[in-house]
């Protein structure tokens, strides 16, 4: 019969009236009718098969034999209450850099973690020479890796477009055997048809920051004089979306706060503006606009509403909400799932002067500097700490979490910023992450029922 020594190996949840179980170790997803869901819930709660039988008899007046047989089959097949696949701490190697090409921004968004783009320092732009040196550093330290990632970030990276352009050309020409993956995260204000053409032709994915409609966006995304930015950036962002049409080469990405929790409306607003690829992320801050425990029930309702509307709207026209992208068949291997984002080891951020930080969010925090692109990693002790923190099972609170194989242990920068400890998960982020995964699993189920259309990353 069922081994209940590891109750955490099954996660039961309901979403928009549907009943599910996620078998944590195998990734199997099951959908239940009312009696079978009740039976499993009772069994997990009480640990007694007799109590579960009795309960179902009283509530549904049916015999449990048929249901029990189904459970037995699933257990036999390793679909439910499965044992973990063996995994281990990967030997991470550098493969990804965030080039903070601009410690400067023409916007002054009130929630900006980068202190309005300057990262708390004097404003500066990365020179093409430093960017090229960073590319050399990446290639030199990523032996054996085929695909290398470069993300142009800031501040506003288009302030340093000349550097962006030269870096891309340099990487491709100097290291043609590498599979280059370029991304740029921009507020869109400095985009021109020429710049977009260059980015498009060079397969640069573009993340465009826009928080929603004019009212929502202009609440926090403002110029230095306090003026809203929507009217200014929308035509430019829209132009990119039209140019890229149905390609997956762009995402419109918004930030939501305590004061703008209505993500279902915001997402649908963006979709109704014509955008096909949309993402909304929670602000992470200790300030008063940060998400707190009290906001979670509302957020859960918002996710349920959005998931429902999302599934419904797919009948009219396909679009993607990033959090619902979850490929049940071709997702990453388990080994990848337990070895985190690689911050500080596999992934680093480089500031305009060439300093290396564990990721873009650590840029400017002097005590987290790992070295620089000219002399290499000098703070090996700190890097070792990040290496350990990347392994899921080195974080006490992640070991038994049902979401561990979808989240892989949270964001180390969030842990540091909110808890001053990279090993201590930022709890609000964890709760939002869980909502997002449940919503994505629900969407997968509904999408399968609807049509052959499947969301995928």
């Amino acid at each position: 019969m069922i081994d209940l020594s590891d109750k955490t190996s099954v996660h039961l949840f309901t979403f928009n009236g549907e009943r599910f179980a996620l078998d944590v170790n195998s990734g199997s997803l099951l959908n239940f009718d009312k009696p079978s869901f009740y039976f499993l819930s009772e069994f997990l709660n009480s640990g007694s098969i007799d109590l579960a039988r009795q309960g179902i008899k009283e509530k549904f007046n049916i015999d449990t034999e048929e249901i029990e047989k189904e459970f037995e089959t699933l257990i036999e097949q390793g679909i439910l209450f499965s044992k973990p696949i063996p995994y281990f701490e990967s030997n991470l190697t550098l493969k990804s850099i965030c080039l903070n090409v601009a410690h400067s921004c023409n916007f002054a968004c009130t929630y900006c973690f980068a202190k309005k783009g300057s990262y708390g320092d004097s404003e500066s732009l990365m020179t093409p020479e430093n960017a090229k040196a960073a590319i050399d550093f990446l290639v030199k330290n990523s032996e054996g890796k085929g695909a290398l990632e470069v993300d142009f970030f800031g501040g506003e990276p288009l302030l340093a477009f000349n550097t962006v352009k030269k870096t891309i050309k340099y990487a491709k020409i100097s290291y043609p055997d590498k599979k280059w993956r370029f991304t740029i995260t921009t507020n869109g204000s400095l985009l021109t048809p020429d710049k977009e053409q260059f980015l498009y032709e060079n397969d640069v994915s573009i993340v465009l920051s826009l928080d929603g409609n004019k009212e929502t966006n202009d609440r926090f995304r403002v110029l230095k004089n306090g003026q809203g930015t929507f009217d200014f950036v929308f035509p430019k962002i829209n132009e990119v979306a039209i140019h890229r049409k149905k390609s997956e080469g762009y995402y419109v990405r918004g930030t939501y706060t305590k004061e703008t929790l209505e993500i279902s409306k915001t997402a649908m607003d963006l979709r109704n503006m014509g955008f096909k690829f949309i993402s909304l992320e929670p602000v992470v801050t200790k300030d008063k606009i940060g998400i707190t425990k009290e906001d979670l029930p509302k957020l859960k309702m918002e996710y349920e509403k959005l998931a429902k509307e999302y599934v419904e709207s797919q009948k009219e026209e396909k679009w993607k909400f990033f959090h619902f992208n979850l490929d049940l068949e071709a997702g990453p291997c388990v080994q990848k799932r337990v070895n985190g984002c690689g911050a500080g080891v596999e992934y680093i951020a480089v500031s305009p002067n060439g300093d290396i930080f564990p990721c873009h969010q650590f840029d400017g925090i002097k005590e987290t500097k790992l070295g620089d692109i000219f002399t290499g990693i000098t703070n090996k002790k700190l890097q070792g700490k990040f290496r350990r923190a990347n392994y899921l099972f080195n974080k006490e609170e992640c070991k038994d979490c049902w979401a561990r194989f979808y989240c892989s242990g949270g964001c180390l920068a969030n842990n540091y910023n909110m808890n001053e400890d990279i090993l201590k998960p930022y709890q609000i982020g964890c709760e939002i992450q869980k909502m997002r995964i449940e919503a994505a699993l629900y969407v997968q189920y509904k999408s399968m029922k609807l049509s052959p259309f499947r969301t995928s990353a």
Partner: protein
Amino acid sequence: MKHIKVIAKKPFWNIDKRHDCRECQTPCKSACKTSVTIGNQVCEIKKPVKRWIW
């Protein structure tokens, strides 16, 4: 089955568990990007993607 529907059957076993090639995208969960979690990703060997999004 009458009471239970299997939506996904052991997907973690679909991909060679010894792979560990790490050729797929870095899963940066930072909210200032698109918060790419492991859950959002695909196996680069099984399903190569032309453009990645952060």
